[in-house]
């Protein structure tokens, strides 16, 4: 699989979480920006076994891959969804970003064209971090510049 994305495809995504968080995050993103075909969700049940969850993620990666790599967005570093997702790590093919939030799903959904998996992964991480605000501090008049 190519390191650089120049084939017109997008980096695919799989949101992986405990419980139904993944499905609902994706549903919220689609309510806001419309259907997102290159991202899917895998919700790992509290009692699912690791083999079943691994198989589900593997099938999900296959569904969303457009040949430009797939980003796995997991809910929490150290949790089972992240640990299972990390087994799929392959440079240029599969990357994992933890701590998924709605801005991260929207950023992946609306990613700029022609970016590599590594570039999109960094963008998604940075947007996720930058979109955490302490609202009280904003009211106090902190300047916000964004591009």
């Amino acid at each position: 699989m190519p390191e650089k994305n120049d084939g017109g495809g997008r980096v695919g995504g799989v949101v992986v979480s405990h419980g139904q968080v993944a499905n609902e995050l994706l549903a919220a993103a689609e309510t806001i920006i419309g259907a997102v075909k290159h991202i899917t969700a895998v919700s790992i049940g509290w009692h699912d076994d690791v083999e079943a969850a691994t198989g589900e993620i593997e099938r999900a990666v296959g569904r969303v891959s457009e040949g430009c790599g797939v980003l796995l967005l997991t809910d929490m570093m150290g949790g089972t969804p992240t640990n299972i997702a990390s087994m799929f790590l392959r440079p240029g093919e599969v990357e994992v970003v933890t701590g998924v939030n709605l801005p991260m799903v929207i950023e992946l959904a609306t990613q700029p064209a022609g970016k590599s998996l590594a570039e999109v992964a960094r963008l998604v991480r940075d947007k996720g971090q930058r979109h955490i605000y302490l609202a009280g501090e904003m009211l106090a008049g902190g300047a916000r510049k964004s591009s």
Partner: protein
Amino acid sequence: MVECEVRVVNRLGLHARAAAKLVRTASGFQSAVRIERADRAGAADAKSILSVLVLAAARGTELKVTADGADERAALEAVRGLFTSGFGESDE
């Protein structure tokens, strides 16, 4: 470059779905479109939803819209129309 001033009139402000509508509209033009808060507390690329959301523009917020490019007048009018129509949202 052309610019105009608008005010957020819909009850929910420039919330997620309104921002998505703004981005879809702005993205239909070649011109660069920017939105800046009149109080200078933030500025956004109108073609990036996450950028627009960080403006945190509630109802009543005054904004400056600028468009720069071949179709800047049409882009400015389209964006202005969204704001004046309250993004087509009823205020119930």
